[in-house]
């Protein structure tokens, strides 16, 4: 089976998932992002790598934060950015996903940034572009269903590398609703590819996908045991609709067992960093004392996210 993310020369042409990408490409993205960090500190925060190119933000599902960071990243690369809020336009009129894509192709798009509620939607778009012979148009997955959120995964890797330097000596715990989390899946694939020897998943059975061990992950139901001696703790957001029902009895009971409090965090290494993809639910998955504490690197993650998205867009669509 061909890898839809790579072109014939093995170069990244779409970013759809961190799965199936060689470590060299992940590292290339992180290195490129590092070079863009300097751009963000300039007075004129622009480089001309995507000058004259059109980036279409196609958000079939709402997300102001992710869309904004992609928009900033594209503008810093000098691209023209067009935001389409599809939830309220074409598909509401019955247009199919691929009809929408065909129309936008005719508007000379160069890059689609796609957020969609269905797992795999960006693959369908990439496959369609291949079929209609538009190798010049690229797709970046900005989150598809429960499947993947590769730029978030990569910015998490950037953050870990920034603080911990070397992946090959680390113990990383991912805590919370892994079942519904595209971020968790992207993190897991990136971490294992980059050589992290021990990736742990912590959560109640109702929030863990089955056969997680097959992805190279050690499963813990006990938070304290799972956090012990970890270098990195990645907290996941617990969606409101999961809190009361068949998956969990209440937000309170969840917090008592899986909330990251200072006491819980003490199980990890003293220099462990705490990450969160945002937006946070304070008092549900994370205690404010941790979220605002010295070990949290949650705001730097956001800053790194812009550089990582610049890197991805310039690599797939740059001149």
């Amino acid at each position, binding site marked *: 089976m061909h890898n839809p993310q790579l072109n014939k020369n093995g170069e990244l042409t779409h970013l759809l998932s961190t799965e199936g990408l060689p470590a060299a490409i992940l590292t290339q993205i992180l290195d490129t992002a590092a070079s863009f960090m300097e751009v963000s500190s300039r007075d004129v925060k622009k480089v001309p790598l995507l000058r004259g190119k059109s980036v279409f933000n196609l958000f079939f599902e709402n997300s102001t934060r992710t869309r904004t960071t992609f928009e900033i990243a594209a503008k810093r690369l000098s691209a023209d950015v067009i935001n389409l809020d599809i939830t309220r336009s074409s598909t509401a009129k019955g247009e199919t996903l691929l009809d929408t894509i065909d129309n936008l192709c005719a508007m000379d798009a160069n890059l689609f940034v796609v957020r969609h509620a269905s797992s*795999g939607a960006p693959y*369908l778009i990439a496959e369609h572009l291949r079929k209609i012979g538009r190798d010049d148009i690229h797709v970046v997955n900005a989150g598809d269903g429960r*499947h*993947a959120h590769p730029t978030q995964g990569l910015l998490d890797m950037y953050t870990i590398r920034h603080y911990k330097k070397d992946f090959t000596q680390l113990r990383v715990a991912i805590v919370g609703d892994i079942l519904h989390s595209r971020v968790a*899946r992207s993190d897991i694939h990136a971490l294992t590819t980059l050589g992290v020897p021990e990736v742990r998943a912590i959560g109640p059975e109702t929030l863990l*996908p*089955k*056969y997680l061990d*097959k992805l190279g992950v050690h499963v813990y139901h006990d938070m304290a045991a799972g956090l012990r001696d970890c270098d990195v703790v990645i907290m996941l957001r617990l969606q409101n609709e999961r809190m009361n029902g068949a998956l969990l009895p209440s937000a309170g009971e969840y917090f008592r067992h899986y909330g990251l409090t200072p006491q819980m965090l003490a199980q990890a290494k003293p220099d462990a960093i705490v990450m969160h993809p945002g937006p946070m639910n304070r008092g549900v998955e994370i205690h404010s004392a941790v979220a605002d504490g010295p070990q949290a690197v949650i705001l730097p993650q956001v800053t790194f996210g812009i550089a990582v998205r610049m890197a991805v867009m310039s690599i797939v669509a740059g001149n």
Partner: protein
Amino acid sequence: MNIEISNGRVICPKNGVDRDNVSVYIAHGRIVGLGEAPKGFVATQKVDAAGCVVSPGLIDLGARLNSIEAELAAAVAGGVTSVVVPPDADPPLDEPELADRLVHRGDEIGKARVLPLGALTLGLKGERLAELAGLKKAGCVAFSQASRPVVDTEALLRAMEYAATFGFAVWLQPQDHWLSRNGIAHEGEVASRLGLAGIPVAAETIAVGSIIQLVRDTGCRVHLTRISSAAGMSLVQRAAKEGLPISCDVGVHHLLLTDNDIGYFNPHARFVPPLRGQADRQALSDAAAAGTAAICSDHTPVGADDKLLPFGEAKPGATGLEVLLPLTLKWAETAGVALPAALARITSAPAEILGLDSGHLALGARADICVFDPNASWQLTPEALRSRGKNSPWTGYMMTGKVRHTLVDGRIVYTT
């Protein structure tokens, strides 16, 4: 018309016939001679079957006929001479008139025989019983919910009691409503990796378990359709061993594919029930090889637009009538099953499930016959299919086994 089919390898699994280079003689719609022409037989038409297998016509235990003319033409192009039609048409087949109309339309078209399954409950809603006796009279061969489970167990019990009263068979696709309603793929490593909501094997075993208990209590004859898991199949086999009146079938795609074939979200690998794991596929294959499960196409034509969608939004199912034979041959080859045994799964075994005296080539039998070249290969392309359903996970693949002639009631209804 008197027809002589000569020089073929005649295989009749039911009667243990496998003879090379013999003639089959047909008159008045029936088989009147095998090897030897009856006295005074003069062929008005000769079919040269050299290099071909002469088999009973295929009986497909499940094919949806969205556009009946095209699909019945597809059936005979695939060597299928009888098709069992599930009741989940639009509108559902829950009134005798609808069944009557379907049967008549099938007769008018004059290709494959149409054997409708009547809806067990009105609108397939799983609440009120349909008029089973009336539907039976209109030509329904059994009663079914298609792929929609009866959620209310009491309603299922009553339906089975009522069907048992009249000696009607009930066909059920075992899927627990609650465990399957949100899922789109087998709950396994692939679904976890791709972030697809899973349908656990328990969705099947729980339903099979309930149905078996209700069969024990009611004595209703039940045929379980499209078993998908090793655990589900094992329950069915144990129940059959216990002597309960239970039979089952598997979809031919489930014999050859697993959830791994979803690859990068291929919507053509979306099925109900879902493609499961390798051990499941193996168990289904073993059951088919052992003769405990019949094989059917589960033919489901889906328009191109309904497949050009993200995996979870695409309509499930694949075209099947024209690939039932080649895929069964492919399965037989990989599973090491001899040709007559493989053909039994799509001829005599379905006939037995239906309680019909067909699916064989004995003297006096209705001349429903499939003549196919077991070595001819062809490429599956949209153009190669007569069905309106071009949706297949095998598009672009080479198929081995090509139907040359199909006879229904002693009439040649397809030839190529």
